[in-house]
Structures are given as C-alpha cells and as structure tokens.
C-alpha cells in the first residue's frame, strides 16, 4: 500500500511538517517527503488528530515548500530489508547502500524500532570473551551479550582500542574468531577519516567481509543521526537472532547521537531537562542499549561496544551519566595515563563490568580470578590514596607500607595496564600475581592463605632474589 498526499502541507517548522489529514494513517507510520527539488526525505508521523497530522522529517527540511511537497505514506513504521548479504556492505545512516553495489535483496524486513526482548526469554550472558587487553580480561571481563561502552574523551585512542577488541575478541581456547562471528559498525556523526580508519583497519585484519558498516558522517543531517544506530542494531539483531551469528556492534560516537537528540527535541519545542537534553533521554538511550543480549534457544548473541566521548572529560555529564545507568558497566579512558604513554590508557578504578561475576571463576576462567582481581583493585585503590598523600608530604614522609603501595601503583600502570601486545588470560593473571608479590602478605586480605601460598609466595621469593 502506498498512498500519496500532494499539496496538503500547511506549515513547516524545523524538522516538523504539518499536513491536512486526507488519508487514514496510523501513528509512527513511515513517510517519504519529496520536495520540489526532487530529493526524498524519510519521515514519520509524530501526531495525528482528526484534521491534521504532524510529520517529523528525519532528514534536512531545507528546500521544502508548502505547495509542491509530495508525501508518500508507507502504511507501516520504518523498516529495514535484511539478508545475510548485508555483511561486507556499506550503508548510509538510513539503510541505503552507498558502496556503489546493487541494493541488498531483502529476505525479510524488520521494524527499525525493534521490540523489547522479554526478560524471561533472555539467557543470562556467561561466555567470557578474551579481548587480549589485561585491564579488561583480568579486571573488567567482557561477556557475550553484554553492553559495555567506552567512556573516552577527544583525542584519546578509543578507536584503536575498539578495533583491537573487535578483531581480537574470541572465546577462550578458540584459536581464531570463528565463521559465525560478525561485526556491525555504526558511525554516528563521525568525521570521514575516523570512519575510514575503521574501514581500513577492519580490512587489514581481513574482517571487512564479516562487517556491515553504517555511516552517518559528521556532515550528514543530524536528524538522520537518530536513525543510524536503529538501522545498525536492527541489522545486528537480525544477524544475531535470525542468522545465529555472534555479533559485536560498535556504535561510535554516542555523544553525537545525544547531541542530535537534543537538537531535534528543542526544535520540537519540548521542555528541556538537564543541560538542555530532553527528559526522555534515558528511555531513548535505553531503547538502543537494551538491544543487546542472548536469547534462550537462539545460537547467536549480540554484544554492544559503544564509544562515547565525555564532554570536557566529565563523567557526570548527562550523556555518560545516563549511559552508565543503562549499560552493564563502562570502560573509562584516562587522559593522564595517555599522556604518560600508557596504552591502552584504561583507568581501572572507575571502570566496571557488571557481568564479570557471571563469566569468571572456576567454571568459566580460573578459580582464583575473582579474588585476584578484587585484590588488585583494593591494592590499586590504596596506591592511589598513597599517591595523594605523597603529593603533599612527599614520598619520604610516607610509612613503609604506603611506599610499597606507591611502587605497586606505578608498576600496576606500567606493567599491567600498559601492554605492548595482546595477552592471554593466563599471561594477564601471571602479571597480576607478580605485582602482588611486591606487597607484604599481611596486606593481601582478599586472598586466602592457600592463594597466597600457591601464587604469591613463590613469586615473592623469586623477586627478592632477583633484586639482590
């Protein structure tokens, strides 16, 4: 069914187009708005009453006129035509192919808004993913089906880290990423070179044919930016839950998405909430982030790794703040570590993986993994305290234990967080035990005597010998 309304427009205000209601259409139905300039723009019906309807145009409205604007009604909400062949293709922010190839022959279409996964049908994510990054694997483990964002800042190497995670991620004891692994990449308002960096890197690692790219460049319309992650996640859900693939969805940069949300909201004249962002930003972000997980009886999984740049590196800014309340943890990058050439510059203290507890331990990784990570956390937090103390009273003014902590903190950053190449979990744990050997055993209250005897004491001895 495709219906058209011609010359029914009565008013255009920002992204909103008001029409006389000449047809029987439903709320949220998709429309195509064709201007006198011949360009088509996607839109949706935002409100209807008996005589009028309001259309939210999702692309630029400039150039539209009241007289010659034609609106075509789809009679259904926005959908995306999907097939396994979307892998290896490049789309724009509204799901149109832009790599010069033929359009995708759709096997099925899905609403881009998606539906909430029934919590009863969800399977709790458990499969530990080895990323090769110690600060993740050992300290903040990622599991399949998790949504874990990277909180970064302008100029930090989040893109590089995301690519490394995407190309290295595998289950333990799996030699290489299997054929059922796919990447969906959504560039939301990213600069051209950043999008190009991802494309090139994925190509380099030979992952491009397993990737569907959705690009909304910084120069594209900001209303479209609201659709990009929805098209991308619809593709990801299809690949995961219909095609049974293990999908890693990378959304970058969610800050641009939120900015677009604010822009569109204010042009609609809505009452702003914190920092001008709309009051429904939490629900809106949740409608994206919640589209991750595992479903009972379905082979595929959908893991989300989104990147957001914290405005002014402020973790309390509404964008990272609301994101942190929705996602299952966060990985925080630190400018300070980056300056000290620690790569990856992951600040482990504010970082967190909420699902870690479900994916580690005896049945999944190693029996001592939880205690080791907890002890490292406690010790590093203590070392940061010691550092604050030392900055005032000087290192010499510290008690002996605090000085040991100080040394531990430096070693933690330089030898554990910083890593020249990928490590296996065993190598990461080894590095962790080695560090703890530099502390007095009495301080290791989160380890059992057996753990100290098995892992720390022998290394402590070696270390002491080596020093002499």
């Amino acid at each position, binding site marked *: 069914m495709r219906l058209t309304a011609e010359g029914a427009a009565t008013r255009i205000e920002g992204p909103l187009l008001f029409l006389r209601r000449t047809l029987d259409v439903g*709320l949220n*139905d998709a429309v195509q708005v064709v201007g006198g300039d011949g360009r088509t723009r996607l839109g949706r019906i935002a409100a209807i*009453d008996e005589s009028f309807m309001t259309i939210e145009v999702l692309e630029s409205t400039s150039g539209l006129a009241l007289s010659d604007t034609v609106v075509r009604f789809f009679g259904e909400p926005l959908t995306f035509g999907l097939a396994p062949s979307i892998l290896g293709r490049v789309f724009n922010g509204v799901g149109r192919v832009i790599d010069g190839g033929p359009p995708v022959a759709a096997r099925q279409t899905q609403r881009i808004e998606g539906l*909430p996964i029934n*919590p009863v049908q969800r399977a709790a*994510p458990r499969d530990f993913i080895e990323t090769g990054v110690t600060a993740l694997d050992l300290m903040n483990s990622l599991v399949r089906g998790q949504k874990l964002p990277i909180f970064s800042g302008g100029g930090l190497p989040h893109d590089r880290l995301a690519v490394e995670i995407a190309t290295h991620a595998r289950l333990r004891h799996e030699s290489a990423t299997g054929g059922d692994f796919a990447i969906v990449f959504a560039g939301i308002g990213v600069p051209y070179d950043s999008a190009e960096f991802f494309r090139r890197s994925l190509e380099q690692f030979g992952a491009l044919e397993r990737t569907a790219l959705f690009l909304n460049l910084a120069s594209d319309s900001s209303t479209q930016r609201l659709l990009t992650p929805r098209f991308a996640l619809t593709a990801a859900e299809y690949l995961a839950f219909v095609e049974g693939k293990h999908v890693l969805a990378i959304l970058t940069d969610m800050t641009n998405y939120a900015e677009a949300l604010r822009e569109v909201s204010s042009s609609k004249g809505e009452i702003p909430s914190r920092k001008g962002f709309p009051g429904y930003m939490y629900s809106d972000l949740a409608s994206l982030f919640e589209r991750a997980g595992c479903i009972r009886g379905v082979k595929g999984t959908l893991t989300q790794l989104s990147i957001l740049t914290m405005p002014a590196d402020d973790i309390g800014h509404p964008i990272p703040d609301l994101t942190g*309340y929705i996602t299952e943890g966060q990985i925080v990058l630190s400018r300070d570590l980056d300056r000290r050439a620690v790569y990856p510059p992951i600040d482990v203290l504010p970082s967190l993986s909420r699902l870690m507890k479900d994916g580690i331990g005896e049945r999944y990784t190693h029996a001592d993994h939880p205690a080791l990570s907890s002890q490292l956390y406690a010790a590093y937090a203590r070392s940061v305290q010691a550092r604050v103390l030392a900055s005032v009273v000087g290192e010499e003014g510290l008690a002996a234990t605090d000085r040991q902590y100080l040394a531990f903190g430096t070693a933690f950053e330089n030898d554990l967080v910083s890593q020249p190449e990928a490590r296996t979990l065993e190598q990461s744990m080894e590095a962790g035990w080695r560090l703890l050997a530099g502390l007095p055993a009495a301080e290791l209250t989160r380890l059992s005597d057996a753990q100290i005897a098995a892992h720390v004491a022998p290394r402590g001895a070696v270390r002491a010998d080596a020093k002499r």
Partner: protein
Amino acid sequence: MSRASIRSISGPVLHATVSGPFRLREAVEVGPQALLGEVVRLHDDEIVVQVYEDTTGLRPGAEVVGHGLPLAIRLGPGLLGNIFDGLLRPLSGADSAFVAPGMHRAAPSTFAFEPRVAARDTLAPGAVYGIVTAASGRAQRCICPPDVGGEVVAVALAGDYREDATICTLRLPDGRTHELAMGHHWPVRTPRPVRRRLPSIVPLVTGQRIIDCLFPVAQGGRAAVPGGFGTGKTVLLEALAKGCNADVIVYLGCGERGNEMAGVLEEFPQLTDPKTGRPLMERTVIVANTSNMPVAAREASIYCAITVAEYFRDQGQDVALMADSTSRWAEALREVSGRFGELPGEGGYPAYLSSRLADFYERAAIVETLGGDHGSVTVIGAISPPSGDLSEPVTSHTKRYVKAFWTLDAKRAQARFYPAVHPLQSYSEDARDLAPWWAANGNGDWLKLRRRFLTLLDDQAHLERMARIIGKDALPLRQQLTLLCADLVNDAFLRQSAFSPVDRVCSPRRQALMMRLVGRFVDLAEAAVAAGVHPDRLGELPSLRPLQRMGEDIPDAELARFAALEANLDRDFAELMRSHGAGDATHR
C-alpha cells in the same frame, strides 16, 4: 461499558470524544489491540487517556472502551514464583522472544483448595475462607477482599480447582450474592485497608552486616539506597532479596536492565530461601518494566508492586519490596507530566513528585490485618541520582519519608569494597527501637558496639584528613591506633562479598560474634597502646589476618571457631604485653 472515539494521538497520550460516562482514573482498552490505558483528564465531551503501551499504528477514529473500573490488578495464588510486566501481566509463557503490545493473560493454573469455612458462616472482610496449595507445596491463604463480607452460601469441597473458578459464594448484607475465586481484583492506586498499624520493633534481618548492625531497617520500615552508577545498588538489592528473612519478596525492576532480570530468573530458582529451605523463587514475585519497555507503564509498575506486597501482608506474611529504581519511576512521572503540558517544578519533575513519593512510602507498614493477623511490608527503594548528586529532588524528597538511608559511595565501590554503603553518610532512625531485639538475640552490647564502630569510622575520616597534611607517622600513637582499628572494622566486619558462598548471607548469630570479636580487639589494642605498645606492633599480630578474613573463612556452620579465634587473640595480646614489659625492662 462506555465507548469513546480517538480524536488525536501524540506519543502515549490520546484525546477521545466520548459517547458515555467515563470516570477519572478509569482503566480503558484502546484500539483493535486493546492496549491498556487510564483516563487522566475529563473535559466536556472529551477524555485524555494515558496509554501504557506503544501506540504505533493507532489512528483517529479507533475505539476506546471503558468498564467503569479503576486500574486494577488480579491478585491470587498464581503470583508467587512468577514474573510480570509493569501492569502485572505475565511475561512467562509468552511464545515470542520479544514483548509486543496488546493484552495477554496467563492461562489460569490449578491449585489444591481446602475450605476453612462452612455454609452459613459469617465471613468478614479480609477473613480467610480457604487454603490453596501450589504444586511446589507452598500454602497460601484465600482471603476475602477488604471491601466484601457476608454470609457464606456455598463453599467448594476440598480438591483441585482453577484459580479463576468460583469456590465460595457469599450473601452480602444487602441481599446480593457475591462469588469469590482464589484471588480478587484490587485497584492499584488505593492502599489496602488494615485494622491498625503497629509499632516496628523487629528488624528485617538482611544478612548484610553493615545494614543489620550499623543501619538496620525495621520490619514495616522504609529504606532508601541512593548511589551513582556502578556503586552496587542492584547487587545490594539482589543480595537483600536473597538473604533477608521476609516470607515474600516482591522485586520491582523499574526501568532497569533486561539482563539483570534474566540473571535473577536464572539464579533465584537455584538458591534456597534462608527461612524455609525451599527454592528462593517460590517466595518471590518479580515485576519487570525494563528500561526499553513502555515508559507510561513504568509509572504504574510501582503501584502494582506495592499492591502485590500488601496482598501478601494481608495474608499475615512479612513482605519485603525492593524497588530498583525509584528514580526511573520519577522520571516516567516527569515524562508523562510533560506530555500533559503541566508546569514543571524542580529539576523538571512535576510539583506533586513529593506527595507521590510520600503516598508510596507510606504504604510500608507493620499492621494488624483485617483478618486479625500480623503482617508487614518493608519497602527498600533504590535511587539513581544524576551524577551521584544527593541534593537532587528525588533523593531529597525521599529522605523525608524513609527511616533508613544507605548512601552508596563511589570511592568504596571503585576499590571493590562492597557493600559500598558509606558509614558516615548513612543513617537509621530505627536503630534505638531495635536494640531490645538484638539483646534477645545474643548481642546485648549491640547499641554500644554500634556507637563505638561509628565513632571509630568518624574519627578515621578526620584523622585521614590530618594525615594528608602532616603524614601518618606524625600522628600521636592513639590516633594511629584509631586508624588501625577503623581499618579493621572496615575490612574484617563491614566488607562482605555478595558473591562469596560463605559470606553472602551472615546470620544474626555470626554477626554478633564477629561484632564482639572486633570490639574485643579494639579494647585490647587500646589497653596495649595505653601501656606503651607501638600500634605498628599490633599490625604484626599473627591473629590479625584470621580476624580480617573471618567473614570469608568461618561459615555459619562452624561458629565455634570464633571462640578459638578469640582465644588466639587474647593469647597474642597477652604475649605482646609480656614481651613489651620485658622489652621495657631490658631498655631500662
């Protein structure tokens, strides 16, 4: 039945022209899918309806049907062990992996019924007329709705019945007959009546030391848990749901993560109820409106959850309601209010936020039920303050209505010190009333020790500030000792892993022993330092490490080991004093 026709729609709010009477707050079915909604405004011939589901596809002219009843939920024996959406519609049993809009009702299940009344008995409101037993073996009472009472005309014989079958017929005082099934409907926004409220003198034993010993909440009390993201609100609430000694747990996931609900659903059936030894899921009702489910239903979910809690209270049970998170509910209130074009108050929230919060928290109580039993509802609400700022409206208003306040601290959480309850920013107004209970449960010194620990922790905060300026070693010995003791209180007593098989839940008995032991160390240490022992030497005592790890190492089944630990501690100190005396002598 009244009908109306949709005039305009915008998001979850629609206007409709009526052809029949509608009441304010009446529940309505909207459009061909019978979406659930509620009448929120009346205007001449127009009603404004808030729809609780996705309105995509609705069009003007579609029908709105009302039955003259307020938004009500069906309460009955089928609630326990199940998961429901924000409007108490079952989520289990759906065949699709996704939640689509439209009504869905659970197929009624069958329970064994045993009558407790006979024909010609008089049944008062709230009285028990039968016992139903689920397949799991858990018995529940059939209670008369609070607004119905009369003479029993007929009652079913003992046997298996569907939960919606009529099992008892009453003749009301006005001569009409009324049929009762195993459960009944109740409007969610109306508190269920009780005979009278009772004073709270018994704690809700949560199994978490920092809560039970430092900031306890009484049965029938109200507690709030504010904390920024990542401070462990959900983990703490889940730990309470697993370990507390309530008969029934109502767990409300309000605007939170779907994976968390999946985790609860997977974990609870495998854990055992500390009170009965049965699977934990049998005492649990989960109400889930995850963050991507319709926002309007989030506003209603909190009322559904507390109505369910009151229903079990009226059966004479002690109920704990965990609401995670009330901030999401307040935000839903704000969003819906914005759609109605109401004037925003502080932080964009409607001006009635405070009174709505009060309405909700006031429904927590320990009561004598209409049936003459004692029951309680304890409410524990999580708060997610934006950027962890506790001066925001939801936190500051909630603070006025709760008696226990457990502030979660980002610093503690970052050091993976859980539960990350900040001892100086938390409080409990119930503590004094609960001291007699602790005295009766093996800890007569509870109030004294509690005060002692809190003072130590308070002093620690001051001294650490000072140490930051002059260095720790420059502090007087007594103050260095305070730091050592406060560290011990934190490490040995307050830290408790929610995932440790041993320390997940701590019985009151073990709590008392641990509390006394830490108190004992502090006493001995103070005496030693007063006698001139350097605090650093206390840190070298061999029994210190077992003390620090006693939570992890000594399970509830081996409480005798605490006595051994205490003996070691006494011996170490005696040894220390002796060698110190000797050392002094040789120096001189």
